[in-house]
């Protein structure tokens, strides 16, 4: 029978879901929020179950009705389930204003969109009835009931579109009061109509494309129509491959003629920018219009940025603890003799622009799969996330199809929350960066660290091996139409024709089950190799693994699907989530399948790995693709790029009359309240950052937790302790400074590397000796450099800046990823608009912490402690947060960009990283100097415990206190220890100076007395600083 159930909170209880929706409404449309006097949220379920009324009633009652908490409204299936009317009238009568004017908005998924709640509801009914219902259908949705005399249809449509639904994946229906109280929506026929049913005209059609004889235009048109994102040279390479007599003849013997759509799709996926990183492999001609005096030497002819500046950099820093770099889904480094840890950071920008929640959710569970599929499989032990969006108080008109940045941020935040929390992986580190130019495409970086034994079931865990004859098994989720063309789509600019099939929702529960199963199977030695199904689906995962044995042969009709009717090419390239591909030795297959069955995990046995040299795909008996592996992986023609750098822009004028004493206090508060600096507590607390019980240093430093004097401040990085029997830990930090791209991407990249190192050594990561386990990960998010000399030059400079910084401090890269098409092309009021992100490099650093008892937090700890500055040699105001606030000028006498001093950097980092000296354990607090400069760092260190500070300098105060730059830290030491530490710093050649003292005054005092005789200072209440930093009411 067909059933509709609406579940409401009993009116006696508050309704947090409705309240949360109203908070979001208040932020997006304050004037509309005022019109809503009352709101309630109901969960709605639609069922089509082959059960009688008598069977259905007890099952539904047991599953859906919590009598303490809820009313359920079912038409009149369960008559006593609400108040006296047994209908929604009961709920309306509980509203404070009666008679009122009521409306309801119903939200449903579009057909084919992943509906996890419905999936769980199905399992629940199967549990309570003890039966399976393969033919049953369930859908979930919600009903938001609103009351307000000023509400009208337009207002409700705005609520539906901006608060309730993403119309790409969801639809909504508006009910007037009269329609609500009628029970039409519970009628059998109506429910049948409302239950989404995917109408797919079943087809196993395979098309062929006669490429021979096609002109370049025709080839390009074909590529464009099919969303292959292949350029003319690539299409021609494909054309001539299939035209070669040898290939033609071989294909003839196999019964193949012109290339099939399956083959062309596989090539397009494998050669996509997303998978192949063609730009990083490109041959580049680089020129400088206006070379920088004393600037870096960058070669004019570059044979691949990846090879020369990333892998090449690591090759120059060989370390025995580097177990696997750039060859697997993640970089792997040794933790100790028994264990290794791995790290990968991904981006999910394009999907997040269309559906922020789904995009970030699939981003985080996707990078979790990279870890699960790295080596023989690792357990994810932490997540990181970095989001770049336009400011969330953006108030100008939005170009077509773009979502408001507030909505983007809330969506991606919720995606990471659900992806991490529901998978039991702590989200320990991240950053938020705001810039108007992220309006067109937000950047969503998701990272994961993993932990693995170095030997598992007798095999070295960091390597993969496949023998011909091993079975190809797809594990976890099923294949659907969702996610078709994700890889090629992300290799194109976002425009208003972007396909909604590129949007997916993740299912963390299915993946968690699969992950638990796979780690168990790994330890039992049940499979030989593993990789994830990400971009490109089976075409990439099987196509890549096939290189290990030298071939693969699979029958995609054996793959489990979400629904019938998928075409062979769709089965091969769909990026449906939660899937891993493993190679299973034939003799282990029965055990592997039996364990999967016991764990409730689905496996499709698709075929076997071979040594034929071909990637062969069948659909049943029919051969639908046979591709030469050599051509598939090596046949993509090399891209050529031109790059020309115009030189650094002219530095801004100074404003010498600005008075630090008069303006400094207000400037400091303004800076602390800038979204880039302000507290991210609202976000961090919604992530479980402590699950797995490994937390040592948390993202927020929290004093008096649970008490009335509770307060927080920021920490620089995170430390976890992943192994119960070992005192060692892992530190993670990140660096991202896109604001310097406008001055010089070379500098920007150096700063990203430096900041990542600062954040990681600050909390206790080891650094500085060849044995110090310290590794970097690069993630480039660029506006398209193809055909744009400026953007290509920015990329070249960033790569060389990154390389130089890493070499200076001997920090190898172990993994990386790039996203090169972060541009939006669309319309605003009919006019064409193009928005490109600023060149953005995220560097993530991971390090071993030799003993977590040496880990450090950022807050001032005791009154009377001495405050020191380590580093601080060449900070600059140009490009700083203060500069951004001032706009055209910088205050004070000096406008300069920061510069690195690598010799100082090595000394400071080696000392903080335990490679030099022996008194580090006496440090009471360490906080790095970044956005907002030294004064912001001191202020932040005051926040967590509410201490004050009194500091002074003999330098010019604007640049000293607010300048930003490289390798600087604010540290504290107890007064008795200070002589010892000063002696050690001096002996080791660290640049240091005393800034002042921690006080118990609730005031931050910053004075200056220059040798010129100028002096002055500011004094500001820490309470006021905290209030500026918390920025309440700004965030959701």
């Amino acid at each position, binding site marked *: 029978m067909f059933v509709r159930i609406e579940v409401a909170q009993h009116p*006696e*209880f*508050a309704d*947090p*879901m409705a*309240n*949360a929706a109203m*908070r979001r409404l208040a932020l997006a449309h304050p004037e509309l929020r005022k019109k809503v006097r009352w709101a309630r949220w109901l969960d709605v379920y639609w069922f089509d179950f082959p059960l009688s009324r008598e069977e259905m009633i007890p099952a539904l009652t*047991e*599953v*859906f009705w*919590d009598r*303490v*908490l809820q009313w359920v409204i079912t038409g009149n299936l369960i008559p006593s389930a609400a108040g006296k009317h047994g209908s929604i009238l009961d709920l309306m009568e509980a509203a404070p204003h009666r008679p009122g004017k009521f409306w309801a908005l119903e939200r449903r998924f579009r057909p084919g969109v992943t509906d*996890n*709640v419905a*999936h*769980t*509801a199905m*399992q*629940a009914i199967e*549990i*309570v009835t003890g039966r399976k219902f393969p033919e049953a259908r369930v859908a979930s949705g919600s009903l938001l009931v609103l009351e307000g005399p000023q509400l009208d249809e337009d207002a409700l449509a705005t609520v539906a579109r901006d608060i309730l639904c993403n119309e790409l994946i969801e639809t909504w229906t508006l009910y007037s009061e009269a329609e609500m109280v009628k029970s039409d929506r519970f009628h059998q026929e109506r429910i049948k109509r409302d239950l989404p049913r995917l109408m797919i005209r079943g087809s196993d059609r395979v098309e062929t494309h006669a490429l021979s004889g096609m002109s370049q235009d025709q080839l390009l048109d074909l590529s464009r129509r099919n969303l292959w994102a292949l350029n003319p040279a690539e299409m021609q390479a494909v054309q001539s491959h299939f035209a070669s007599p040898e290939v033609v003849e071989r294909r003839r013997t196999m019964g193949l003629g012109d290339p099939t759509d399956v083959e062309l799709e596989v090539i397009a996926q494998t050669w996509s920018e997303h998978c192949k990183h063609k730009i990083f492999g490109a041959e580049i001609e680089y020129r400088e219009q206006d070379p920088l005096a004393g600037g870096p030497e960058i070669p004019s002819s570059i044979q691949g940025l990846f090879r020369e500046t990333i892998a090449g950099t690591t090759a120059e820093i060989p370390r025995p603890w580097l177990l696997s770099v750039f060859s697997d889904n993640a970089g792997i480094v040794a933790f100790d003799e028994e264990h290794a840890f791995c790290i990968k950071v991904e981006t999910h920008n394009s999907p997040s622009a269309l559906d922020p929640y789904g995009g970030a959710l699939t981003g985080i569970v996707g990078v979790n799969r990279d870890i699960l599929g790295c080596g023989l499989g690792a357990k994810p032990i932490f997540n990181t996330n970095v989001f770049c969006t336009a400011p969330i108080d953006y108030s100008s008109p939005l170009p077509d199809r773009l979502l408001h940045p507030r909505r983007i941020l809330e969506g991606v935040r919720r995606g990471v*929350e659900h992806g991490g*929390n*529901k*998978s*039991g992986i702590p989200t320990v580190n991240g950053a938020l960066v705001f810039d108007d130019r992220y309006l067109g495409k937000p950047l969503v970086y998701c990272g994961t660290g993993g932990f693995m034994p170095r030997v598992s079931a007798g095999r070295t865990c960091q390597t993969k091996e496949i023998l011909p004859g091993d079975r190809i098994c797809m594990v976890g989720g099923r294949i659907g139409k969702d996610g078709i063309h994700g890889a090629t789509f992300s290799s194109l600019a976002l425009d208003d024709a972007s396909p909604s099939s590129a949007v997916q929702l993740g299912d*963390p*529960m299915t993946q*968690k*089950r699969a992950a638990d199963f796979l780690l168990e199977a790994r330890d039992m030695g049940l499979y030989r190799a593993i990789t994830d199904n990400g971009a490109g689906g089976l075409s990439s995962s099987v196509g890549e693994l096939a290189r290990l044995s030298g071939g693969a042969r699979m029958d995609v009709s054996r793959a489990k699907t979400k629904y019938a009717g998928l075409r062979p090419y769709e089965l091969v390239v769909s990026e449906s989530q939660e899937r891993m591909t493993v190679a299973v030795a034939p003799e282990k297959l029965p055990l592997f399948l039996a364990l999967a069955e*016991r*764990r*409730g995990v689905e496996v499709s046995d698709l075929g076997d790995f071979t040594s034929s040299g071909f990637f062969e795909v069948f659909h049943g008996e029919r051969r639908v693709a046979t591709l030469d592996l050599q051509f598939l992986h090596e046949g993509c023609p090399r891209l050529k790029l031109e790059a020309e750098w115009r030189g650094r822009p002219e530095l801004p004028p100074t404003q010498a009359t600005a008075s630090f004493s008069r303006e400094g206090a207000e400037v400091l508060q303004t800076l602390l309240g800038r979204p880039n600096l302000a507290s991210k507590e609202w976000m*961090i*607390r*919604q992530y*479980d*950052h*402590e*699950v*797995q*019980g*490994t937390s*040592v240093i*948390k993202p927020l*430093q*929290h*004093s*008096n*937790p*649970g*008490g*009335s004097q509770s307060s927080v401040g920021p920490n620089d990085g995170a430390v976890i302790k992943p192994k119960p029997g070992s005192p060692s830990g892992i530190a993670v930090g990140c660096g991202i400074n896109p604001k310097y791209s406008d001055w010089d991407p070379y500098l920007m990249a150096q700063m990203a590397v430096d900041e990542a190192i600062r954040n990681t050594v600050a909390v206790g990561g080891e650094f500085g000796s060849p044995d110090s386990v310290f590794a970097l990960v690069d993630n480039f998010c660029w506006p398209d450099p193809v055909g744009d000399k400026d953007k290509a030059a920015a990329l070249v400079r960033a790569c060389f800046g990154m390389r130089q910084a890493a070499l200076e401090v001997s920090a190898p890269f172990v993994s990386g990823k790039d996203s090169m098409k972060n541009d939006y092309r669309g319309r605003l009021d009919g006019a064409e608009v193009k928005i490109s992100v600023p060149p953005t490099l995220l560097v993530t650093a991971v390090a071993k912490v030799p003993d*977590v008892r040496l*880990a450090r937090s950022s807050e001032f*700890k005791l009154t009377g402690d001495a405050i020191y500055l380590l580093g601080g040699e060449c900070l600059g105001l140009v490009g700083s947060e203060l500069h951004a606030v001032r706009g055209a000028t910088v205050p004070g006498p000096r406008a300069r960009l920061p510069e690195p001093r690598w010799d100082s950097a090595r000394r400071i980092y080696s000392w903080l990283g335990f490679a030099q000296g022996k008194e580090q*354990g006496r440090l009471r*607090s360490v906080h790095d100097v970044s956005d907002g400069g030294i004064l912001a760092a001191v202020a932040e260190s005051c926040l967590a415990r509410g201490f004050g500070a009194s500091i002074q300098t003999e330098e010019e105060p604007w640049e000293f206190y607010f300048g930003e730059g490289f390798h600087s830290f604010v540290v504290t030491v107890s007064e008795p220890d200070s002589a010892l530490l000063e002696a050690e710093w001096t002996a080791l050649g660290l640049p240091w100076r005393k800034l002042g003292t921690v006080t118990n005054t609730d005031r931050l005092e910053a004075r200056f007395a220059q040798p010129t005789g100028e002096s002055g200072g500011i004094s500001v209440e820490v309470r006021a600083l905290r209030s500026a930093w918390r920025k309440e009411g700004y965030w959701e």
Partner: protein
Amino acid sequence: MIGGKKPRVLVITGDGINCEQETAQAFTQAGFDSEIRHLNDLVAEQFSLDQLSARYQTLALPGGFSFADDLGSGKVLALKLIHGLGWDLNAYAARGGLVIGICNGFQALIRMGVFGKDVSITHNSHGKFQDTWVKVNPSGTRCAWLRGIGSMDLPIRHGEGRLVIASFRRREVLAKMERHGMMCLRYEGDPNGSEERLAGLCDPTGRIFGLMPHPEAFVRWTAHPEWTLQPSRANAPGQGLALFENAYQEARRVL
């Protein structure tokens, strides 16, 4: 130790439970032999209450996101425990067994009706998932797990931690729970709008205990948010360990 035997704890996992390892580790640290078993294996074996009582002195339902919290946190896990295993936990306790449900495990115990039909748990009043440390205070002497324990700092990490009591007979239910010593753990502040600031409940025997905070996440001092203030205590155990040690003493007594 009697006959050199360690008490054994069964830590259940599967279906999205995700704190099984640190929970087992906490029990091990307290002296237990910890066994993590997948719920599906127990269901497939039809592992009976008799077998449970014979083999394990303690049962733990760890934290996590079983069934993704869909249809209400712990709800479907509770249905699976009821229909798949049918263990009568009151009978298990009567035979000397100890039970703990942490966070999602506590939510499942509530939905199984272990603490009566008039108690439920739902979304925090602020509507958000929240990871923060809180102070909790044991009250009364009934709960075997909290014996001798004073105020503790522990992390909470949940979106649905607001205990609610059937509104139409709230006073009566609270009085009864008070009488039976069930309201055994309270927050010092009010992090989630929970009735009576309740952070945990026990059954009238005091042997079945559930709580929203995570004691297994504070078994070493370096997990505390303020540990860097007193690095000299870095080797100390965390306050949460005392719960598992209480269970150890109690389980050893009945072994």
